[in-house]
């Protein structure tokens, strides 16, 4: 009896290590949220049009696979805005201004693309860097307001979403080189201002996605391995203790917001500087006074990825995947907005992460314990556990 008890305890410990691992708990709760969100979407589809629900749902889940290039292309901007939101969130700042930073980055990239005459290899790189600087500017200002005047960053960055959007629309409409009034869109970019394509036929996917993933990995290293990351997370967990330890809170707030802005700005640049499948054309921007949705999708991506850079890489690809699949549901008569409902529900559930995680790990634990007990009964001769 003694050794049975001991081996049971041994088992419990290893299980404890597994389920109490932070990465595991975030991952399992995200999966749970996705699962429930998809089920909810399926129910909505059944209610809307029962006869096509199954084919529509299979488009949602698997449709993206047939358009893998597009999945990666559309994942790029939300990956960057997701990082912009998640990175600031690690410090306890809610950067709701990713849209404005994204729009600003896009404008700066377009400006360099149209107005500057640079050598072929350098042009698109300069345009990307300009995009980052544009975003940084719009992250920096709310950061300064927060750090020096203690104005809530949520309020300033919402305002800056509007300022950025109207400003960019005004500047673009007033510039005949960039704007073509007959199409009411920006013109096609010069070829050397476009990011090199990855060559997947029929899609805009470009080097941007690879850069974005690398940036995600770099952010992970910054957060986990550097003193700046240590200070940043410390401030996010407990601002008072970070002050007590002599960390320069104001400098860190400004720096974090500037970096976050730069990330979102890069998202705008990666999106607009994309080459398209049709030779000679490029992505264009339509200045119609709408706040960029990619900024807000970044919040969803960051929430689903638990603000963890690596998690955000995967969550952005996943969201992009079901968005692509969602557009395909129109083939069987659904409105593509159905996918926004699914995403909303997923985000809603991922907010209950801890509860769901407890439910899930409790379920696994019970199952494993039962199985363990059974195997014990069949093999009573087990001796020392370890």
């Amino acid at each position, binding site marked *: 009896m003694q050794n049975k008890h001991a081996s049971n305890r041994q088992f419990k410990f290893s299980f404890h290590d597994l389920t109490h691992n932070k990465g595991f708990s975030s991952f399992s709760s995200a999966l749970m949220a996705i699962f429930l969100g998809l089920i909810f979407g399926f129910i909505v589809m059944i209610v809307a049009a029962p006869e096509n629900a199954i084919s529509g749902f299979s488009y949602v889940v698997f449709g993206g696979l047939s358009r893998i290039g597009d999945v990666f292309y559309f994942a790029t901007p939300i990956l960057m805005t997701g990082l912009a939101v998640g990175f600031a969130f690690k410090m306890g700042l809610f950067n709701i201004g990713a849209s404005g930073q994204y729009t600003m980055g896009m404008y700066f990239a377009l400006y360099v693309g149209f107005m500057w005459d640079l050598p072929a290899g350098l042009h698109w790189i300069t345009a990307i860097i300009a995009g980052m600087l544009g975003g940084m500017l719009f992250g920096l200002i709310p950061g300064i307001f927060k750090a020096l005047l203690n104005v809530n960053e949520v309020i300033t960055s919402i305002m800056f979403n509007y300022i950025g959007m109207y400003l960019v629309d005004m500047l673009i409409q007033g510039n005949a080189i960039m704007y073509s009034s007959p199409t009411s869109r920006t013109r096609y970019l010069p070829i050397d201002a476009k990011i090199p394509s990855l060559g997947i036929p029929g899609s805009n996917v470009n080097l941007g996605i690879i850069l974005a993933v690398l940036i995600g990995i770099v952010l992970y290293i910054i957060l986990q*391995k*550097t*003193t*700046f990351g*240590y200070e940043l*997370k*410390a401030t996010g*967990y*407990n601002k*008072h*203790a*970070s*002050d*007590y*330890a*002599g*960390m*320069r809170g104001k400098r860190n707030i400004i720096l974090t917001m500037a970096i976050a802005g730069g990330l979102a700005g890069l998202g705008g640049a990666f999106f607009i500087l994309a080459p398209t499948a049709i030779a000679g054309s490029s992505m264009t921007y339509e200045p119609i006074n709408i706040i960029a949705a990619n900024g807000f999708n970044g919040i969803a991506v960051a929430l689903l990825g638990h603000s963890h850079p690596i998690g955000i890489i995967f969550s952005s690809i996943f969201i992009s995947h079901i968005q692509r699949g969602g557009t395909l549901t129109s083939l069987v008569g659904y409105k593509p907005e159905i996918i926004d409902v699914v995403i909303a529900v997923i985000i809603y559930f991922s907010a209950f992460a801890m509860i769901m995680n407890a439910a899930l790990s409790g379920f696994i634990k019970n199952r494993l314990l039962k199985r363990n007990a059974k195997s014990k009964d069949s093999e009573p001769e087990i001796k020392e556990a370890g």
Partner: protein
Amino acid sequence: MENYIVEMRNITKEFPGIIANDNITLNLKKGEVHALLGENGAGKSTLMSVLFGLYKAEKGEIRINGKSVNINNPNDANALGIGMVHQHFKLVEVFTVLENIILGVEPISKGFLDKSQARKKIVELSERYGLKVNPDALIEDISVGMQQRVEIIKMLYRENEILIFDEPTAVLTPQEIKDLLEIMRGLAEEGKSILFITHKLNEIMAVADRCTVLRKGQCIGTVDVKDTTKEELSRMMVGRDISFSIQKEVMETGDVVLSVRNVTVASKLHKNNAVKNVSFDVRAGEIVCLAGIDGNGQTEFISALTGLDKTISGTMTLCGQDITKASIRQRSIIGMSHIPEDRHKHGLILDYSLEENLVLQRYWQLDFQRNGFIRFNEVRQYAEGLIERFDVRSSQGPVSTVRSMSGGNQQKAILAREIDKKHELLVAVQPTRGLDVGAIEYVHKQLVKRRDAGKAVFLVSLELEEVMNVSDRILVIYEGEIVGELDPKKTTMQELGLFMSGAKRDTSKEGQ
């Protein structure tokens, strides 16, 4: 069998992973003061919460006046005549004493509140038990001791026969404690039965008839107070001998380490300054204690001293360098270590691991980082060394989350970090707050060790015994002013209490 008014038989209460009460039996006689003694986490509060209906016990039975009862919530407890004075008072600050007392049991005539009837009863109770409360005073205007008496009247007004006091003296001045103990005796003589939760032995010796001792969730025994001694009780409580007096060698004091001149600090709560024109020196090799009742400017002064807040005027010099406007980091480099008052708010990042917390003041030094990258191997080694030297206990060693550690071990971690850091001045603010006797002894020994190592120690304390035992010199702060400088060898607790309550002041200090 004697006539017990409360019998708690074989109470067992479990929380996940811990048995808070393990088969505890407690009997309360009618008209006695019964002390419940134990360290933090011994299960005193849990046991009382079971009696008061806040928790439900898994096993055991409660009998009131010989009848088995079920207490599911505080209302049930109230109906059975059980009342409780909580450690943190449950009073509405902007209501009068009378309004607070009748809250929940308002006397009503013809649909309107009838205060005159209530007032008569309150005045009568107040006179009968010598409580001296004014029913029309606002709670925010009266002293803490008076607020506590309001809580007592609240119980009496509801005609409770069994009164539970949860660490009632923690917030009081020595004079107020004396008054309270007298009131408790008076209540017992009038036939009320009192359960008195505490870990202060002197108070038990002064007021209690019997005492039940708990240790780690188990009942160690019930003794008659008149047949026992303080030493005996403490041995029962801790399980080993505790030295009450701290062994201190006489030390020659060295150079002035900290010099404070005419420092004034604004208050965040009101327009008056919280700290007014304070001046003093702390020398190497001495423990200077800033004594005072909570809320007399200590917190504000420490914020200014450690750099968390600004001063209005005055200068502070540390090791010969002016630090009045220095940043927190600069003060730390010059030689200030700080054990903060609130270890959860300031001292620790609860979601960080133990090792990450142990380098909180040093992560930026070249020992622990190169080119902005943290050297995790060095951090681990350093943490393991500190954990061993200071005996910091946790479930998973350096990687355990600090949140999961006990209060005593959290404090040890802070102590280890601040003491091991290079320093000339150690600022310790209520370093023993919320700790049990064993941990308090440990902290005191560490402070004395620092002094013996030739460091200056500046201690802020609300506990009279700590002030008297640990310090070499006492500064008393009252309403933001230093009202006296005392030598612990030449003064008495009573005199110190008079200074702390503002009844006495050292006029020779004025104008300095």
